[in-house]
């Protein structure tokens, strides 16, 4: 389960970067208004944030062991 979570988190991070990068490129290339970037940045940022969160949770679990991972969950 952890491997799946990390793999999908990584894919989402790459996708997020791709969305922001390609939109930025389109704006620069076609001269579209900068306001058009708001949504791609938001969606891409959320995807990147989701991936980072999964890696952070995994990293915290690795550093502190399974007991700390259990305790870090909301009670």
């Amino acid at each position, binding site marked *: 389960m952890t491997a799946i979570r990390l793999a*999908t988190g990584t*894919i*989402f991070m790459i*996708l997020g970067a*791709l*969305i922001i990068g*390609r*939109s930025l*490129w*389109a*704006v620069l290339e*076609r001269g*579209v*208004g900068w306001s*058009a970037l708001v*949504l*791609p940045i*938001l*969606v891409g940022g*959320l*995807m990147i944030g*989701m991936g980072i969160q999964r890696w952070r949770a995994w990293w915290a679990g690795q550093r502190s062991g399974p007991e700390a991972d259990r305790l870090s*969950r*909301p*009670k």
Partner: protein
Amino acid sequence: MASQAVAQREHVGLRREVNVWGSFTWGYADVGADVYVALGLVMAAAQGATPLAFLIAGIVYVMVGLAYTEMAAAYPSAGGGQYFALRGLGDFWGLVAGAALMLDYTVDVALFAMASAGYINFFFPAFREFRTTVGPFQDVNLIWLAETLALILLLALLNVRGIRESSLFNSVLGALDLVLEASIIVIGFAFAWQPELFLRQWQTEFPSTDQLLYAISIAVISYVGLESVSQAAQETVRPATVIPRTSLALIVVVFLFALAFPTVSLGILPWQEIAAREGDPVARLASQLPFVGFLAGPLAAVLAATIVLISANTGVMGASRLAYSMAELGLIGEGLSQVHPRFRTPVRAVLVFSGVAAAEAVFAFLSGRRAMETMAHMYAFGAMMAYFLSTIALVALRIKEPHVPRPYRVPLNLRWRNVEIPILGILGVIGTGLMVLVVLYTHDIARIFGPIWVVVWVLYYVWYRRRTGRPVWGSLPRDWDAQQLKILEDTGDYELLERFRIELMRRQQERGRT
């Protein structure tokens, strides 16, 4: 006879067997499926600004979601929003919230059974396009209606059999749903998304303010379903631990997917093409994916048909459990809350509310080509009304019951005397209040039938309370602390129970001193 019925209800309560995955998929089956229905409807109104409509509705949803997380973890009762409103605001408002939710659950059954049939018809275009005239009603699709009614009947029978089967059903298909939605988003963004098309539609196809408001009020239906997690609370194992994890994960995943879907759609297809397929928009989108489109379209249609059916299933479960809770709290008669001795499910409630859903489906189809839109209007009204009362209840409960242990608290609080006022909760009240106004302003059908539905329930409530000699506008005397102790004992969260007992003793000592 009545006391016998009460004793029977107490003896055969709801079983506690929903775990973390079950709770998540129960909620996801409901919330995650909404986008399959909402995408086409919202796109028809918001055009190039569809992601913006989903974003604005999503911001309100996040605030409501956090409020629900706090209350469902602190008060794990099958009543959900209705129970919170009753406990925070009194019996009458509990009834109003219950009526709004009941509308939502029955519409959920009708709308999602309709959507499921719509996705089945991806394979039968002739069924999708079939139209006939029935008396004064034109453009009625009788085949689609028959399919919808058959699915409602199937769900009613499934729920009469019991929650174990239904939860398993939800879990497996909820997982498939996650995989499907993630695959469409990943493949779509990676291989088919054209930022130029997306940016051009955003800039040149922006709707009018009225259209955008209308779209936002439809987009809220993409986020309805957190209620399901609360509804399942009374059947969830260790809810204080499970519910915050489930709800927070749901909030993030659903918000992300609800924004990603319209964004990827507008980068692959012109908005008109999605809007034209209100019955199966996601299948249309999936069929446009490169490499896998020939397979993804039909696969998406099959999975979507099944997934939205789960959502309809959560509606049947939700309506019956809400009736159980309302009867337990003395808001409606006990007949509907009776639990079948063998199946241990509220059989009467399942059958009655499935019947109501079937009637709503007939009503919607008689409106001709706007069948899904009609249901979406009612769905949005019920949800926003209930969410509005629930967010008020969050603030009221923080003031009235600061001593109840809360395994999760909505972030950003302002301390005032001994109470922590939730700023996001107050913003949630404002947000949902504005949404109710927008729904009433923009939806011609919900403006009339939504309030009528609530008024009918209020009239029944007045009659019932008078007949049973109970206060109509006041509340029944209840020992909430004793009830909380019982709830915590039932949940098996002994740490929380101990904290609550200590808090009660401390308050008792304080009272003794004064």
